[in-house]
């Protein structure tokens, strides 16, 4: 009798898991519901462009108030099936590219890693080949994917390796007493952050590599794009990078000697793994050349620093 009372108490307190037992082909959970347990992943996604893919005002304007239906296939996709192109959802479009868009496969909530908990409150599918493949992203980001695919190098990084940085943590986090008990027995695994960030959070040194050769009052810069896609990448919207060259003299005074915008529409984007040469006049007592690369978001007027490198003069 005590066992049955215990079970009743347990199920009564698990009322919020009810939706998880309902996962099927047609009925799927909302992101908020996923986020009740996958708290950190949900919060990362919420900050990402995927979450606002449908609701952000630029998209709404660019589709003439959502009247261009073709765009919705990728901005509010149905749960995707591996081999078919994405199709627009008919409901809950506000969620944009939501949890189930990627993770609901054949009635199971799927991902690249094995289940980590003792309790599986919903059907779980494991398919690392699908989820670690750039092609999975490429079904929507097709321009980038074509560009990436054309790059022939041996240790080429996939989309997920850079745009979903690795992190070791538990798959779920708990908020209530019962859910805490369940989470307590889960172990930490190496997994991916769901930030989908276009640019790194910190300026990075390995995006481009620079060589500077001095010849009299000129310097010749060789700027190489180390990424397996062009710089800037992407062919939706108007993406602009600003490349600034500063000459720094012995008293560390910076003087801007060159500035250039990189954009596909201006035919100035640097192709993957290609280098451009740029000759610039420099002040005579220049010691260093400093190269700044910034992403210019014309919508919000905010600037993201991508890299900031000091190059000694040869």
């Amino acid at each position, binding site marked *: 009798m005590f066992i049955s009372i215990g079970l009743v108490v347990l199920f009564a307190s698990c009322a919020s898991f009810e939706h998880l037992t309902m996962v099927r082909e047609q009925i799927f959970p909302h992101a908020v519901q996923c986020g009740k347990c996958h708290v950190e992943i949900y919060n990362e996604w919420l900050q990402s462009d995927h979450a606002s893919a449908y609701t952000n005002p630029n998209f709404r*304007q*660019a589709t*003439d108030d959502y*009247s*261009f239906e*073709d*765009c919705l296939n990728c901005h509010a996709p149905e749960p995707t099936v591996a081999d078919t192109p994405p199709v627009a959802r008919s409901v809950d479009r506000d969620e944009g590219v939501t949890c189930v868009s990627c993770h609901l496969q054949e009635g199971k909530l799927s991902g690249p890693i094995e289940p980590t908990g003792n309790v599986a409150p919903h059907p779980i599918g494991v398919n690392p080949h699908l989820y670690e493949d750039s092609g999975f992203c490429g079904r929507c980001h*097709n*321009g980038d994917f074509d560009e990436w695919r054309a790059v022939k190098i041996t240790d080429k990084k996939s989309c997920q390796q850079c745009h979903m940085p690795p992190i070791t943590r538990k798959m779920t986090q708990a908020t209530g*007493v019962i859910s*805490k*008990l369940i989470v*307590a027995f889960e172990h930490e695994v190496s997994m991916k952050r769901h930030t989908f960030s276009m640019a790194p959070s910190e300026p990075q040194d390995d995006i481009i590599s620079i060589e500077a050769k001095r010849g009299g009052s000129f310097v010749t810069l060789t700027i190489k794009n180390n990424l397996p896609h062009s710089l800037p990448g992407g*062919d*939706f*919207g*108007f993406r*602009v990078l600003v490349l600034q060259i500063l000459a720094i003299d012995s008293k560390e005074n910076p003087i801007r000697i060159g500035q250039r*915008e990189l*954009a*596909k*529409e*201006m035919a100035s984007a640097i192709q993957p793994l290609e280098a451009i040469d740029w000759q610039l006049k420099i002040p005579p007592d220049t010691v260093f050349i400093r190269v700044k690369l910034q992403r210019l978001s*014309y919508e919000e007027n905010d600037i993201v620093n991508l890299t900031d490198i000091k190059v000694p003069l040869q």
Partner: protein
Amino acid sequence: MKDEKIRRFSSAEIFLHWTYAVLFLALGCTGTLILIYRIFEVEIVRYEILSLTHRIAGVSLIIVLGQTAILSIFVKGFGQLWHTFRQLLRWILSDIVWLAKVPFNMLFKRVTLPPAERFNPGQKLHLLVIFTVLPGFSISGLVIILVPGTLAAWAIHLICFIPTALFLLLHLFLSMINPQTRKSLPAIFTGFISTEYARQHHSLWIETREIKPHGSHVSWRALTLTITASAIIIVFAIRYYGYERAQENIRKLISSQGTTSILPGRLAKSHTDDPQLKYCIICHQSLLKPSSDACLSCHDILQQRIAQQSGFHGKLTGQCLSCHTEHAGEDADIRNFDTTQFDHNLANYELQGKHSKLSCQKCHLVKENEDEDAAAQTKYIGLNFGKCTNCHSDPHLGRFKKACTACHSEDGWKEPYLVFYHNKDTEFEIDQIHSYLACASCHKDIEPPLFKPLPTTCEECHDNHDNIEKQNHGVARRIVSKPDLHTGHATCTECHQTDKQRPKPADYANTCLSCHDIIQQRMAQQSGFHGKLTGQCLACHPEHAGEDADILNFDHNLANYELQGKHSKLSCQKCHLVKEDEDAAAQTKYIGLNFGKCTYCHSDPHLGRFKKACTACHSEDGWKEPYLVFYHNKDTEFAIDQIHSHLACASCHKDIEPPLFKPLATTCEECHDNIEKISHGIASRIVFKPDPHAGRVTCTRCHQTDKQRQKPADYANECKSCHNYEYEQLYHNWNMAFELRKSQAKKLLSRLHQISASKASQIVERITEAEYTGFHNIQLANTLWDQILSEFPNDIRDLEGYPKNESE
């Protein structure tokens, strides 16, 4: 041997024990859970259920005890309870010895305890404690229920809890776990215990003869096991809860001097941020409800308002707490304010006109701190509203000294609500000369119309308008000459009357003669040359037509300069009336004239802008067509491509008369500056964000120069050539979207034409603007179309079946 039983408890005692025990356990459990919830913030059972249960059990206990007291008077069995109490409250000397020896008895079996009565001194002590705490619990409990927020009651309740809990635990241990004493447990169910037990533990009650009880009363093993088990449970509970969190909460409990244990819920964030509000007593009182004075001692604006009976709060009576609640959690909005029901006219600022149609947040969303979310930043009290500029930005950039309300009203900024009279409200009175001008004829420099106060003298405006002032002073574009004789003698208004629109030469007839009085005299007397003339001064005097009849028959071709073409038809003075130097009067001079260059006689209408010789384009047979010899592609730097091939000359060279054919700019942007502006977001009425292509992508990237009169289909492949193949569809979609708006606008326009031609012609201009904006700034074009469609009056929209415009 059969064990003999002896009756220890009467039915009434058993009944009283269990009714008391059940309610007391319920109170103890719920009380403990409430304390855990408050101190450790763990909600094992929902707080509301705990609180309700605790209150019901507490009141029930008081009622049950009262009922039992009444029963004891009327029912014989219950009357014996008084006797029991007397037994429990009666202390004899050996009881004191018993209590003193108990600890030693636990340690050493040899130490014997003095004999005890029916209730041993431990039980007596327990009852004494219960008798002490019961009134404390009951009275403070009732006060807590009836007068919420009294601190003293909570403190007493909490202080009573501690000894009660200790004695309850001891009671449970001794009666249910300790092997020596748990033997007596059945007595409280059946009323009987074994005689042997009674002899051993309550010898004074069962025997007249003293029998010293021997052996220890408490089992060490049982005590250790119980404490160990409790410790393990507590350790697991803390581990599950988290060491650091537990430590943190206990530190908080200590640092707050125990007050977190009675804290009914977190304070709202605004209150926790204030270090002054650290102690309960700041707001609460010991014996009374928290008073409004405590709130108002900080919220001084409200105190002032209430004192002055002004504003919304000034009209209210009653306590703060009747609307506002506290301790509802950090994120709770304790303002408890229903904006949909609020009558704003109760506040200090009465809403009139357009103000009354605004959403609350339009004025009350005050972003003082960027980090907080928007909802938390509504500010309803203490907004500045004395001046319009507290909320509105001044499009006139502070240039006007009068109050905004001198021209504008709350019913709307623009016509027809604008109340503005140029003659009254500015320093420049609009006279008849200026009366037919559009506003923008004078206020043309700055967009959006800032109506910068312009100068009020004639010269300051007409300085760069027709160069009248400069020309009077001899400053022409190409030369500097003597000042005109009239300069300095006459003000503009001496000749130009301000009370006449569009004056003609005839209007100046009397003006000249009012100064040139000799001529006026001659004309009046009909004497001299002028006296024989009729007509206006201006008919002759700007021209000074020559009349040298002597050389009419002169054959000019005998001279060094052969007259050809149109030169042969000129009068002599046309060329030969010259001035030798600046001071001399004009004289006819027939010998020694310079004739090597055209410009010795002809002024260059192109103002020296062309570097080639005049004869490269012109001949002596005539300046203009058909004598003009000129090829645009060869003779200028701008080759006429297919796009421009169907245009008339004046389509581009339209600014200057006579046509000077000023070399125009050769880049696309310099002529098509409207497109350039539009792409940078500058429309005629609004300023918008620039299109990302502006300044980055050249015009010819999309516009091929080898095709005349291009149509939308000609650009179908341009978007996708930089972006991707999806953009072909996107381009098509936008084309369709713009076409749809255009056809809507045209349909509405045809109806508007029948009602108001002037309004319609304004809209036609704006449609043109929206059309050429198009793909040069898609978002701006979209906005322009929306604005145009919303400008049509509602009755017209209604006729065409479009939804009504809400702003109207």
